[in-house]
């Protein structure tokens, strides 16, 4: 691998990211999967970085997930998006940051479509007006939350309590990054680093001391696949894709995976359990899986947040070996205690995948 070659490509895929004043919208599903991640994004940006990140409880889904599941037509998604933009406009913000990659892709796709077909935008404006008497301005900047973390990665690195380095050996951790398909594959120019060699997550890993490991099936889908997963009969196909990725990853000794998409993180984590149940195979060391983190979680760990505060107990794959490796201290007994220290009960353990 010629690193300079990648750097050359990264230079072509940079975008302007304003340093402050963001209008934040959440993902539909992340709060169920890894609820602490979005909360920590606001904590980190507001408390640690001191940025103005605003959110309103009135915002809804962007319609992207339904659109990609073939449940609604694009025009419906556009009208939903128009309302989202209207909320932003009403609060006076111009920079829009969604926490979901599919949302990000959805917004970009809609804005690009409107750019190509202005008459469509006019019709949507009309529909929005008819529906809820709202008007909107298109955001001046759109970035994904991972773009922002990437943007502030070096500031975070400066404030880091831990680095992605093996405490014992001093070696950088071997990490893979996985980009959500809707982040760059549709509009590479709207991403950091492009679609082939995206840099948004790689940049964080590098900045926080880890080593990015490439593997042949890096570009492959995580194994969610929207419309496929939502038909139970097709889930075998979905999990097979994840299986393919992990098979490809196996020889590289990858210690953790960093993702920027709600679905990817969830499925690459949970499917490891399904694969272990079906094939008996696990991909981490000593019968463990490979932990899969969101960028907020990783940033949180680097910044010294308590892992259980980051919601890491909600991961299927045990994160403890990883925490031990980078020297994060944690109370094993507190893993399944709720915010009010009430015992949430320990989940049933899988047959093959080692967990605590």
């Amino acid at each position, binding site marked *: *691998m*010629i690193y300079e*070659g*990648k750097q*050359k*490509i990264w230079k072509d895929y940079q975008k302007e990211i304003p340093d402050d004043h963001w209008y934040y919208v959440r993902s539909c599903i992340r709060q169920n999967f890894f609820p602490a991640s979005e909360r920590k994004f606001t904590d980190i940006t507001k408390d640690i970085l001191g940025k103005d990140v605003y959110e309103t409880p009135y915002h809804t889904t962007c319609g992207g997930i339904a659109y990609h599941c073939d449940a609604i037509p694009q025009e419906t998604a556009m009208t939903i998006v128009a309302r989202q933009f209207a909320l932003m406009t009403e609060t006076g913000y111009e920079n829009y940051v969604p926490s979901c990659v599919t949302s990000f892709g959805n917004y970009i796709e809609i804005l690009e479509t409107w750019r190509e077909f202005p008459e469509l935008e006019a019709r949507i404006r009309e529909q929005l007006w008819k529906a809820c008497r709202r008007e909107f301005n298109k955001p001046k900047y759109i970035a994904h939350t991972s773009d922002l973390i990437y943007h502030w990665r070096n500031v975070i690195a400066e404030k880091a309590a831990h680095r992605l380095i093996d405490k014992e050996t001093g070696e950088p951790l071997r990490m893979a990054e996985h980009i959500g398909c809707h982040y760059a594959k549709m509009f590479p120019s709207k991403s950091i680093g*492009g*679609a*082939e*060699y995206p840099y948004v997550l790689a940049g964080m890993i590098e900045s926080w001391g880890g080593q990015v490991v*490439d*593997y*042949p*099936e*890096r*570009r492959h889908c995580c194994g969610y696949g929207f419309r496929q997963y939502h038909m139970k009969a097709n889930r075998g196909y979905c999990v097979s894709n994840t299986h393919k990725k992990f098979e490809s990853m196996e*020889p*590289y000794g990858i210690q953790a995976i960093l993702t920027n998409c709600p679905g990817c993180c969830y499925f690459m984590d949970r499917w490891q359990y399904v694969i272990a149940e079906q094939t008996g195979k696990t991909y981490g060391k000593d019968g463990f899986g490979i932990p899969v983190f969101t960028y907020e979680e990783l940033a949180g760990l680097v910044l010294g947040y308590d892992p259980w505060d980051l919601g890491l107990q909600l991961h299927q794959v045990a994160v403890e070996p990883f925490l031990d490796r980078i020297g994060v201290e944690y109370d094993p007994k507190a893993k399944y205690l709720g915010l009010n220290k009430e015992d949430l009960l320990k989940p049933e353990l899988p047959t093959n995948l080692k967990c605590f």
Partner: protein
Amino acid sequence: MFLTMKENVVIIGGGIAGMEAARQLLLLGYNPIVVEQKEQLGGHVGKWHRLFPDMSSAQDLVRRMEEDISEANIFLETKVNSINRLREGYQVMLSNGVNIACRAILIASGFKLFDATRKEEYGYGVYDHVITNADLEAWFNGNADPRIPHAPESVGFVHCVGSRDLKAGNSQCSKVCCMTAVKQAIEIKERFPSARVWCFYMDLRLFGKKYEDFYIGAQQDYAVQFVRGRISEVSEALGGQIQVKAEDTLTGKPLRVRLDLLVLMSGMSCNPEMTRLARMARLDIDSDGFLKSLDNIRSINESNRPGIFFAGACTGTKTVPETLAEARAAALDIHRYLQKGL
């Protein structure tokens, strides 16, 4: 500056088109002035190793052509700074300060080899063992290339890299790549007889004399296998091997193969230098980005400006013999134009 009584003809581009035209113009009694950007004549062909279908040496060809035009004025490492219309003819100002008045200009600025890094998915410049057809020719010519393993066991050739690719901005077929791939596959097999060689193609466009014989020979005598399906994704596997993915469109199945070397058949794209010239001389550009001929059937050599002529790949993708034939035709066109003016 020129004491000769012979009439000047400025030839922009010292590749094979420019050289061949210069030779013909010398024979017709003119004073051709060849202006070449690079430090040597010969253009792309000068860097090639062997030329199909005779497998003759490209270097020999260029050397012989150079000898033929030893009497011509040749400016190397020189650019055209401006072209101004005079009452009769043009004034061409060169970057070396030379100022030439002439009644005819031949543009033979050729093509630019498609920059394979633009097809990011192929990882040219990123992966250790991905090279282009031009790199391979350079290696055949004896230039060391660390990307080429000592004894590759499997080699892949990707046809149509940057050709027939709207998204890469090159909708045209580059004509020569299919045949180059077949030729290079054979040459690779000659050097590494035990290597397995695959060519990944969309269509095999083997239109020229003896091209089909090469194709049969590659299959029959060299066991080169042709897979119809364009490689869509290249990754690096452990040990630096190249993993490629394509659809095997003939079996309708996805296909994956690990290779020790991947050769990209970079196509021809229009030369940005040519675009600059076109602006200078107010020449029309065709929809494919190449210079626009007066028509594409009978007057390929003629431009929309009187006294400015074209030869070779500046008007579109051409093979070597086509380029040479066009250069000779252009010389004759110029001769006829200048005679008429007398």
